[in-house]
């Protein structure tokens, strides 16, 4: 257990204390206590930047289950550190924002901060774990805490719906990912990611390699809201806005990106990885941006825009992975996609975080997030307006904001796809820049919608619940910090280049590291007149046209009927699953004991008959059987007649007496077969049983008047004949093939020598096998007590038990 481990689990430790802080310091907003931790953690993680810059990594191991190879190994490299800084940095800003956002008196702050800290710790664990099982453990903790946070206002139905939906989808992906991890373990015999990477050349041809790849991508795609699993993200917007800003823009949804980046050294270079990651990514980017324009809720727009931007990062990671297959051209011609992915990851966290906070402020100050009700807020909220412009323009990819740089690099990497000649890209490569360009136009349009529909146009005070005014300064601090970062990263992108981006690239595509163990990246705000710039100009031109004529082509969204959307499909699938499983259960769980008995007997017949046939077990031999005596034959006939009488008796008295006759013939059989003790006991027990039946006779239920005879049922007859036949067949074949001799010669020889008794049966009962007898006595005692209490203890209605 090192300091690093303590840092990772410190949010959990603080979460334990939060309820006490909440209870005993009611006058202070609990968030202030929480705020200290992410700030400290951020400062702690900053110091690793210089270590990573020199190409070094840090590994600390704490034993957990060493015998299974599962240990809490914390591993800091460029990629893990980048995420850790995002988590703690944005975490601190979100906590600060939430202090002003959530009311101290009206909200349950203790649960909020417990969940938030759980999430923060789980997220740190995901990005800093080297062990697959530990990673998975933290992964599921993020799903769980996200579920709790989305359902924070649990009295609202939509919150519960959104929480359940995100839970089902992310846990579905998480479980598949666990399957992928197990497959990796089966191939490499280790859970450590770094050790797996060293074995990659041996396993690429393994039959389980591609299944593992697909299963792990399932986990990444569900978490990162890729098509078609993005549907949970818009519904997760029911969470409080700080949660949306933190989880659903900056951190949790990037866990899937992290997984793709982390497993790139293992899987990239294969066409499957390239095609799945980039094709789904680029399509998700288009689909998200296309649908974002349709939304009328500000958070809805941001949710779809997050989906779109995540798709963009994903596609760049996919394209970057192809660089491994092409190692002839050096100097980062193809690796620019990976650089751009990491750069945009940071940029997206900054501008999307600030935009969510802006939307939270608007919601907080006006009481609505619906763009149809908002408008003309510019003069009321100048600071919020400025932040919104910075965030939205950066998202649209305009200078002078950081989104411009990563968008240009995105275009660069997409146009270079055309020049790739691997994985059938000669034919399909051209699709990438085209889809990317179209998606960027939609991105531009919805970014403009966010700003101009909200802050300009006609002010509609009659539709607002509150009189709008500027937010308190405390609420503005966090978005201001993020917005200034948006600026700073544009003018000084190279403060990130060699501190953060380059070490992260070294983790994603380590096999392409040059001789000096460094990538040479250079990001400049201005790169001359080239294709990318003209693409951006085209985006702006078409975007402006598209935005201004939005009302004219909006009807295009009505083309796809509501019924065919993925959400409706999900709802219907869930409903059908529920309904059909209930129908199935109702079909066979009838509540009639007779049906259950019929199932049991039928399975009994099928199972035994099949195994008799399969093993060819039936055998019939006359040899070795005892001869049939006249007495036995007569007695057998008596017994069969008695049995049949029971079956066909009309009154219960006949049935009871016929049952008695069968019992007495059984005891006569015992006499004939030389079993005096059995005969004695059977005679006695049968007498007592019949007496018991007769004792209850007066109270016993009459066989129903209207159906005196047992009603005939063909299925029942078939089942019972089947059982009887199977038992007979089993008895015959067991009798015909005896495996070994009886052990009873021992009892016969020793019952007098060792036990001093001449009645062998009694000696066996009380001496050789006395334990049986002890517990048989116990059974009888329990039965007697049970009968007594059943008769004596009665709880009447309305009485205490």
């Amino acid at each position, binding site marked *: 257990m090192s300091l690093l481990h303590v840092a990772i689990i410190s949010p959990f430790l603080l979460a334990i204390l939060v309820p006490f802080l909440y209870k005993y310091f009611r006058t202070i907003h609990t968030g202030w206590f929480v705020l200290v931790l992410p700030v400290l953690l951020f400062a702690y993680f900053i110091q690793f930047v210089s270590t990573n810059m020199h190409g070094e990594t840090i590994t600390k191991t704490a034993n957990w289950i060493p015998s299974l190879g599962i240990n809490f190994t914390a591993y800091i490299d460029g990629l893990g550190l980048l995420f850790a800084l995002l988590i703690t940095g944005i975490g601190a800003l979100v906590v600060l924002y939430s202090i002003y956002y959530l009311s101290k008196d009206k909200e349950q702050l203790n649960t909020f901060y417990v969940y938030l800290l759980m999430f923060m710790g789980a997220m740190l664990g995901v990005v800093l774990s080297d062990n697959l099982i530990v990673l998975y453990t933290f992964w599921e903790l993020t799903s769980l805490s996200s579920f709790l946070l989305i359902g924070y206002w649990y009295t609202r139905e939509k919150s519960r719906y959104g929480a359940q939906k995100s839970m089902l989808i992310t846990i579905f992906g998480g479980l598949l990912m666990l399957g992928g991890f197990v497959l990796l373990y089966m191939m490499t015999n280790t859970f450590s990611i770094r050790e797996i990477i060293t074995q990659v050349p041996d396993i690429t041809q393994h039959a389980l390699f591609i299944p593992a790849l697909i299963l792990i991508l399932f986990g990444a795609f569900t978490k990162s809201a890729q098509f078609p699993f993005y549907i949970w993200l818009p519904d997760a917007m029911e969470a409080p806005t700080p949660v949306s800003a933190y989880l659903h823009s900056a951190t949790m949804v990037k866990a899937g990106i992290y997984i793709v980046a982390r497993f790139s050294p293992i899987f990239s270079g294969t066409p499957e990885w390239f095609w799945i990651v980039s094709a789904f990514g680029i399509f998700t980017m288009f689909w998200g941006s296309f649908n974002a324009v349709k939304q009328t809720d500000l958070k809805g727009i941001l949710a779809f825009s997050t989906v779109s931007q995540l798709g963009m990062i994903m596609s760049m990671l996919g394209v970057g992975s192809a660089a491994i297959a092409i190692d002839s051209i050096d100097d980062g011609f193809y690796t620019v996609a990976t650089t751009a992915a990491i750069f945009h990851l940071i940029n997206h966290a900054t501008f999307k975080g600030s935009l969510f906070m802006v939307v939270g402020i608007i919601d907080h100050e006006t009481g609505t997030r619906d763009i149809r009700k908002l408008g003309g807020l510019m003069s009321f909220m100048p600071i919020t307006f400025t932040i919104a412009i910075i965030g939205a323009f950066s998202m649209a990819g305009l200078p002078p904001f950081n989104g411009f740089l990563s968008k240009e690099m995105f275009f660069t990497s997409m146009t270079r796809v055309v020049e790739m000649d691997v994985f059938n890209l000669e034919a399909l490569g051209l699709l990438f820049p085209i889809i990317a360009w179209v998606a960027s136009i939609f991105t531009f349009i919805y970014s403009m919608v966010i700003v101009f529909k909200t802050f300009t146009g006609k002010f509609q005070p009659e539709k607002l619940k509150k009189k709008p005014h500027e937010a308190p300064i405390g609420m503005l601090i966090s978005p201001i910090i993020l917005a200034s970062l948006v600026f700073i990263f544009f003018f000084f992108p190279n403060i990130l280049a060699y501190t953060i981006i380059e070490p992260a690239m070294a983790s994603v595509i380590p096999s392409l590291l040059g001789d000096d163990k460094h990538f040479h990246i250079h990001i400049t705000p201005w790169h001359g007149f080239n294709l990318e710039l003209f693409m951006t100009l085209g985006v702006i031109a078409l975007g402006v046209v598209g935005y201004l004529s939005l009302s004219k082509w909006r009807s295009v969204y009505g083309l796809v009927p509501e019924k065919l959307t993925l959400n409706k499909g999900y709802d219907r699938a869930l409903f059908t699953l529920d309904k059909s499983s209930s129908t199935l259960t109702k079909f066979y769980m*009838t*509540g*009639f*004991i*007779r049906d259950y*008995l019929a199932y049991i007997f039928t399975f009994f017949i099928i199972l035994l008959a099949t195994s008799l046939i399969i093993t060819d077990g039936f055998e019939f031999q006359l040899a070795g059987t*005892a001869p*049939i005596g006249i007495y*036995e*034959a007569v007695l*057998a006939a008596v017994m069969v007649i008695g*049995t049949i009488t*029971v079956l066909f008796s009309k009154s*219960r008295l006949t*049935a009871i007496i016929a049952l008695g006759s*069968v019992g007495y013939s059984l005891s006569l*059989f015992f006499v004939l*077969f*030389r*079993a005096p*003790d*059995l005969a004695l*006991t059977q005679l006695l*027990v049968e007498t*007592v*049983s019949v007496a*018991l039946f007769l004792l*209850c006779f007066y109270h*016993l*239920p009459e*066989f*129903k008047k209207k159906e005196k005879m*047992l009603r005939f049922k063909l299925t*029942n007859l078939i*089942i*019972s*004949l089947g*059982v*009887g*036949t199977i*038992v*007979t067949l089993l*008895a015959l074949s067991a*009798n015909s093939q005896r495996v070994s001799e*009886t052990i*009873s010669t021992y*009892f*016969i020889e020793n*019952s007098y020598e060792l036990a001093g008794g*001449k*009645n*062998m*049966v009694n000696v066996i*009962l009380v001496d050789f096998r006395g334990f*049986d007898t002890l517990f*048989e006595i116990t059974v*009888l005692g329990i*039965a007697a007590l049970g009968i007594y209490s*059943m*008769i004596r203890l009665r709880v009447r209605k309305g009485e205490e038990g």
Partner: protein
Amino acid sequence: MEILMSLVVGVLFTAAVYLMLSKSLLRIIIGTGLLSHGAHLLILTMGGLKKGAAPLLGEHATSYVDPLPQALILTAIVISFGVTSFFLVLAYRSYQELGTDDMDQLRGNDQYE
């Protein structure tokens, strides 16, 4: 002999199962009674029905019948007696309280929708 007994056991099992599948609680109890008779007879038959003296050493016979199945059956008889009597009283009590012995009417009412 064993073959004849196997057939008798088959008849007992058939009748027992047929009764257990009926609606009346009393018939089910009678069915279980027949089933235990069948089982006891089956154990005895499978132990071998070779002629020999009863398992009493005082007989001074050259061969005895197998004493072990007899001990097993004795235990089984007592246990099935205990269970049957408990079951009988349970049926009697449930008839008294619920007023029916029709298994169809005794089905569970755990309908939750």
